[in-house]
């Protein structure tokens, strides 16, 4: 079939691990919007879910760091973190190696992706799955964009990766859903954890929802580091979703800074036609 669904959401470990410390009303509204996103996802009856994530040294390290990597296994494990710390139980998550192989084969026409037949999920994928596939019954294909260990892929390439991913999905008979998960501005895992640049986030989201390719790819990494923290590098996952839905517009279901979650919590969809 093709790509049938595209969205973006936050993945910060505090969203589950420090849930009780957030303002209850804000948290419940955020969770409800994540639930709404799940309903919209399920309505498209996907056969598989591609999660474009920005992992945090669960699988990839500076000894051999791929700019882009796609999982190619029939199952994955996660989370790697302490289960109580993340408040998500360790489990096996289904994959689809055959579909992965075909998607990767198609991607290689455009982008030199790496692939991995072993992959341990960290909070970057487990938190979105906790809300999107709570029964863990939808095969997942993990994709990683290196957003942690510079040098990083340029933003224009992240957008191109999304375009290539769209072509690869549209060449498959399966119904494929796509979720990008990352940032936006945040300083996670530093003493400034909880700092959020809301104005920057809202400007970025305006560019994302308009799918304004030129504006989305105009940030330099120096500007992002200064204004949006090292966590801001994760906008590459949003750009991949924008690339996969080029020419379409998005809808913002939720955005609110929740400092104890260390990020401006975001739920958004992008039209797919």
């Amino acid at each position: 079939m093709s790509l049938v669904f595209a969205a973006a959401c936050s993945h910060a470990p505090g969203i589950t691990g420090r849930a009780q410390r957030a303002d209850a009303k804000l948290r419940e509204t955020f969770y409800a919007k994540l639930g709404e996103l799940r309903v919209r996802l399920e309505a498209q009856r996907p056969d598989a879910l591609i999660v474009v994530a920005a992992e945090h040294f669960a699988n990839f390290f500076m000894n051999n760091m791929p700019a882009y990597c796609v999982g190619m296994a029939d199952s994955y494990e996660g989370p790697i973190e302490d289960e109580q710390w993340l408040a998500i139980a360790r489990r096996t998550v289904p994959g689809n190696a055959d579909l992965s192989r075909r998607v990767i084969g198609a991607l290689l026409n455009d982008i030199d992706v790496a692939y991995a037949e072993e992959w341990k999920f960290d909070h970057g994928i487990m938190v979105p799955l906790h809300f999107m596939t709570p029964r863990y019954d939808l095969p997942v294909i993990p994709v990683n964009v290196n957003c942690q260990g510079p040098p990083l892929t340029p933003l224009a390439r992240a957008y191109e990766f999304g375009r290539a991913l769209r072509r690869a999905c549209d060449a498959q008979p399966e119904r494929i859903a796509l979720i990008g998960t990352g940032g936006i501005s945040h300083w996670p895992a530093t003493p400034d954890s909880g700092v959020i640049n809301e104005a920057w986030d809202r400007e970025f989201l305006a560019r994302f929802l308009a799918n304004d390719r030129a504006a989305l790819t105009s940030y330099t990494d120096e500007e992002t580091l200064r204004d949006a923290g090292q966590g801001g590098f994760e906008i590459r996952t949003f750009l991949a979703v924008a690339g996969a839905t080029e020419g379409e517009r998005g809808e913002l279901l939720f955005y609110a800074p929740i400092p104890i979650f260390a990020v401006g919590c975001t739920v958004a969809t992008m039209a797919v036609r």
Partner: protein
Amino acid sequence: MSLYYVQKLLYQLNRDPLVRKRFETSRDELLAEYALTGEERAAIVDGDIGLLYVMGVNGQILMHYSALIGQQWDEYIASMRAGVEKHGPVRAGLYSMLKDRSR
């Protein structure tokens, strides 16, 4: 200064139960496989999150390691702040390029 190997060891401790087991049962042998200075070795053995942060360990590696050694969230944040207070700003790596927003 061998920040790369400090991070590599922590990365492997975070993700691999077998490396964790070796850290408990044959620590010297495990640590000998990484090119660490005395200060780095001590910081890892002592679980000195503040010093590891100042050395430049990427927070995404350090945060997982903090959870692994049983720190609560507030304790983790406080450890990094105390590390900067005691040892000065982050010395190397990506996080040394961040502006200190707390001052």
